[in-house]
């Protein structure tokens, strides 16, 4: 059986892969929503992520940024349990502790293009579903590109 992009959410739901303790024990990684960051006049890209009650997931679980750079991420724990977030950052990962019903901020710097995972590094939150991605789009500067004609891409 195959799924198209349009009906993927339905297929995941029918298969019991989009929630806790259904087919699998936890929620399959990468089955959540996709969100987009907004770039402010100051060049900082901002987004908000929440942990919904009893879902053990960061929502959106994939946030797309237009390019690498400075990021301000607002993180809200709406769950009735305590979690955290260990996030990638140039210099050293950053960690924030998120008790029940809490809200905090992470200021990050990440290169683009490329994808980065982060997660709640307590117990096995990461395996249950609290693993999510920050995806940087864009291209490297022209000065970093190879001196050759444009090449075909997949």
């Amino acid at each position, binding site marked *: 059986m195959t799924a198209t992009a349009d009906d993927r959410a339905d297929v995941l739901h029918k298969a019991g892969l989009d929630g806790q303790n259904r087919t699998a024990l936890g929620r399959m990684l990468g089955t959540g929503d996709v969100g987009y960051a907004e770039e402010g006049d100051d060049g900082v890209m901002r987004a908000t992520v929440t942990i919904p009650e009893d879902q053990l997931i960061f929502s959106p679980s994939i946030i797309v940024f237009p390019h690498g750079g400075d990021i301000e991420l607002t993180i809200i724990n709406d769950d009735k349990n305590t979690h955290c977030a260990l996030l990638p950052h140039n210099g050293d990962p950053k960690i924030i502790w998120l008790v029940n019903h809490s809200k905090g901020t992470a200021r990050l710097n990440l290169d683009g293009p490329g994808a980065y995972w982060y997660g709640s590094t307590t117990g096995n939150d990461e395996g249950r579903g609290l693993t999510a991605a920050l995806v940087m789009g864009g291209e490297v500067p022209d000065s970093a590109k190879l001196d*050759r004609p444009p090449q075909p891409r997949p």
Partner: protein
Amino acid sequence: MTDYVDAGEAVAHRTLSNVKGEAPATRNVDYDRIKGAKSEPENWLTYYGSYDGQRYSPLDQINKSNVRKLSPAWVFQAGSTGMHSGASTYSFEASPLVVDGVMYVSGPDGKVWAIDPTTGDELWRYKHASPFDTSLCCGNVNRGVAVGHGKVYMYTLNAHLIALDATTGEKVWDTTNGDVRAGESGSAAPLIVKDMVVVGSAGGEFGVRGHLDAFDAQTGERRWRCYTVPKPGEPGSETWPEDGEAWQRGGANCWITPTYDPELELLFQGTGNPAPDFDGGVREGDNLYTDSVVAIDVNSGEIRWHYQFTPHDLWDYDSTMENLLFDAPDGRKLLAHADKNGYFFVIDRTNGELVRVFPFVDRITWGEITPDGKVTPKIYPDEEGVPVHFWPGPAGGKEWTHMSYNPQTGLIYIPVQEVGATATRRRREFKESIPYWGAGVAVDLDDHYGFVSAVDPTTGEEKWRWNHEYPMCASNITTAGGLVFQGTPSGEFVALDAETGEKLWQFQCGSGHHSSPTVYSVDGRQYVAVPTGWGGWVEGFLPGLLGAAAGDALFCFALPED
């Protein structure tokens, strides 16, 4: 619902550790100090210990008479958190540097540490966030840093050259130097020469165009770039198809640190395989400057001469490994190179003239190189879908891991791999960032072995051999104490008698070796440090140990103080 509890702002992970945050200030390391590195044997100032790549330490406190007492002084565990690229292929491949009582070492996944080299205490750490999806042919690895001008330089997995403050680890500048969308990456240790930092590209398995670059050490501004595949009309372009696009994806990456002769002002850079690795039909010709040593003018970035070890390579025989500089008894300036293709070359480093070539492995079936340097291919994947077995396999008789030269014995100690492989040509179209091998490849799971070969480079005579059931996949180092230290894939770190090859000592580190050990001293006590951690391109150099224990520990050994 009440207002949210204020969780505050995320903090650096290291603030929740015992890392001290600062390293003692050292004397400035500049060009003159690195040129004279052998005059301060307590330090290991640059990647090979000295510009000549000899990996020789003049220290002799640890010697043949007492090495059996060598014991662990401390162990540093790198560890990891969260999901990272190459989660199953990371390896601790670096060569630690030591400057005036501070050790600087890089690890997998963008990590750099300053460490107290007498205790193993972590002084500061830096971690470059590395995209999970970076194209990495051969694992999440980094081979080391350069230290100088008050900074520590590292080339990141995503091809950024970064400079850190040597006392705090804080980033000073960051220059993007490669195109990760094209499949470029970074793994080599940078080299400081004059007021510049030199580093080469990786990504030859993805069909990129190799290059070596030099940057202003203070600002990160690029001074020059030397492409190792010529464009049409440039010297060497006649070795590529005239009407094709092959040169644009030609490979010849520079993923190992060059050696350097300050008198000639030449960098000796080994270059990688052509792309696609095994399908020569789409790139007829010798394919310069792949699989070569290129002598590059450090001031201009221009190629002065070259010598190609495997013209029109069809076996993935990179020649990126070191070109070790030494002088003949008559004073002739020479260069020694043990190639993946199983032959050992001695070359006049002033002009690229071949002096001597001889095999240093037992099994060579891909072809033959005569004593005067004539290359005759014999077995290669040239028919679509037909498997071809050859020795050495694509990891070579010796891969990037480094040999060493002891001026006391006049011998070069080569870590040798005896592993074959089967390649079946499978032509495919080129697409940026997708592996571009042109074959299916399976390296032998058995019938492999290894040894350290002690060779007289002036005659080609093998003086002794230390045998092991597994190929040697780690660099060695030799000392004035009459010793050669070698790590094995099965975890042993051994000391050999440099004159006879007799094993005098060993310690089981718990994970295989695929790195470059370092020798130094602090306050009169000599140490030997070796990163361990089996990983990298194991499926290429020893798939028979793909299931061996991983690890990422830095071991440091010394004689008991009492």
